[in-house]
């Protein structure tokens, strides 16, 4: 942690977040949630910052970041598409959804489009099983997907 970092408004905000958790017990995960909201992902610099400011060994921070599905360590496309592969979605044709997305975007799971617009990733059950098959783009959930609907939704995010 240094002054240069703190001049960056994102680090300054993270600094305030960490301060606000000063008296909380076991706040690492909650802090990382907020850090990812601020930075979009958790690169080594951010993990290091958290480690130093909270007095937690970097190995432990890294361990937590990589344990939970929710945290990301590489930058993502502008929009992140999470396709649900949970059981309820599986029986309603989740693999078709992945296939259609591959055709539309030219990328598979874990990849980002060349123009950095979209990252495709997979999740296990979004908890919206009633709408299966489901995908989530950024914070929005889209359900009962078919080809027409997927195309339509992607158009809204293009550009």
């Amino acid at each position, binding site marked *: 942690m240094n002054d240069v970092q703190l001049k960056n408004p994102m680090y300054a905000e993270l600094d305030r977040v960490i301060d606000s958790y000063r008296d909380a*017990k*076991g*706040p*690492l*995960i*909650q802090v*990382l*949630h907020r850090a990812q909201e601020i930075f979009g992902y958790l690169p080594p610099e951010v993990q290091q910052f958290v480690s130093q400011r909270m007095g937690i060994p970097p190995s*432990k921070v890294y*361990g*937590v970041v990589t*344990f*939970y*599905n*929710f*945290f990301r360590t590489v930058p993502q496309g502008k929009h992140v598409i999470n396709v649900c*592969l*949970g*059981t*309820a979605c*599986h*029986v*309603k044709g989740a*693999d078709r959804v*992945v296939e259609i997305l591959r055709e539309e975007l030219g990328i*598979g*799971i874990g990849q980002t489009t060349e123009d950095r617009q979209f990252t495709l990733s*997979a*999740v*296990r*059950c*979004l*908890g*919206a*099983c*009633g*709408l*299966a098959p489901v995908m989530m783009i950024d*914070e*929005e*959930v*889209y*359900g*009962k997907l078919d080809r027409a609907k997927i195309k339509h939704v992607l158009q809204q995010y293009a550009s």
Partner: protein
Amino acid sequence: MKPARSLVLIEIEEDSLLAGAKAVEQAFSDAIKEQGLDQEVRVAETGNLGIIGRGVVVVIYPEGTTYVGVTEADVPEIVSEHLLKGRPVKRLQVCLGPCMDREKAGIGLVRDQPRIVLKNCGIIDPENLQEAIGVGAYQALERVLTEEISPKSVIDEVINSGLRGRGGAGFPTGKKWSFTAPGDEKYLVCNADEGEPGTCKDRLILEGDPHRLIEGMILAGYAIGAKKGYIYIRGEYSLAIGRMEKAIEQARANDLLGEHILGSDIAFDIEIKKGAGAYVCGEETALIESIEGKRGYPRLKPPYPGQVGLRGKPTVVNNVETLANIAPIILNGAEWFRSFGTETCPGTKVYTILGHAATPGLIEVEMGTPLREIIYKYAGGIRDGKGFKAALIGGAAGAFVDEAGLDVGMDYDSLRDYSAVLGSGAILVLDEDASIVELLRGILNFFAHESCGQCATCRSGTGRLVDILDRFCSDGNEDDLDLLLRVARLMHEASFCPLGQSPVLPIESALRAFKQEFLDYTDVSMPV
């Protein structure tokens, strides 16, 4: 404010929000004003009744008329026809009780269900404390405090009620409470991680009736002597988190939480912890590690959390649905509770019915209700008039039940006799066209992905299971299936935590009932 003649309730929950529930709500407010009805008709928000995948749901009282799939465009018609002229809009109407109209019958038969924990879901505005109190919230708490019912008596009442944990294992709740070690500092943790795929019953309660959970937690905290409670909520449940936060604020502002609950010397407060997406964190000791801010590695048991739990202190972990049963039990007594369900599993159970059912949804029925009744009476049978093939009960860690199991009563003991489990109460209905092989591959992938990696048996074992089944599917033979079972059984013996012990159940049950389907399997469409 003078009482309204009619009440228009809009279900606001994750699914309906996506279908434009907010816009429909606005359209109702506008249209009602336009027709000059705003003195007579009130528009309010509520939680989910248990209807899912049907778009925006609107209920109009006092008639209790329920509309599904309502869009902004339908609103003027509903207002002018129903509210102005008293003629329901048949096109959108569904029946929630027994119904003459076959087409419309059966959406969960909400009005036919013996609802205890879902009683207020979809009836009250979950963001309004007064409404919750109006339907009886905090009465049990008040009784305990004013009549000075001792913590021990509360525990005894819960023991006598026979309530068993609804988080999966079915451990008697009162006994669990009575086993906590003595100590000044104890914790109560509500498990709202709800990670079992195909389950969203806890979300319904969190979103639809948050004060019921808070009251249950206060009573549990009082019984075991904990002053602090945590709710560990699945991170994706943003609406539920928001509503719980709001409800906790309201409870604090009204002395229902804090240092002096209802003016007494009893203290209790609740903090929310957001999960970060790891299935294993639903396991109680992994959950405790996660609350402590660590990786969610399960701990070795014993010692059980009741002895050494959160931060080393005695801790009780209970599921949302379990805690939602506490206030009614304290208020109405153990005898009353025992009038529902079976001798060894009293009460009701909430099920999430998904897959190929004609009307998927959430229902609450008595323990011991046969699967056949659940699927054919409450979920409308199989969609498109197809035949029933199987149901996966209990999520990924559950078992496949075929036709022969349709008449087994759904409760912990009867299912165990049938080598199945109730688990989280997820029921995935599969029609004749469903592929058990593909489904099992999906499940094994799930375990491989969610293995926490702490023990080698589960870390490599879950991966091996995927490899073996993949190999079988591409060019394998029956030996692979035997190997699959052997590995799963070994994992059941040797894994550190219940996650690695789980895959044997879906594998065994699938092979028991559908071995021939595996042997006939040819298609090699790899699932991703």
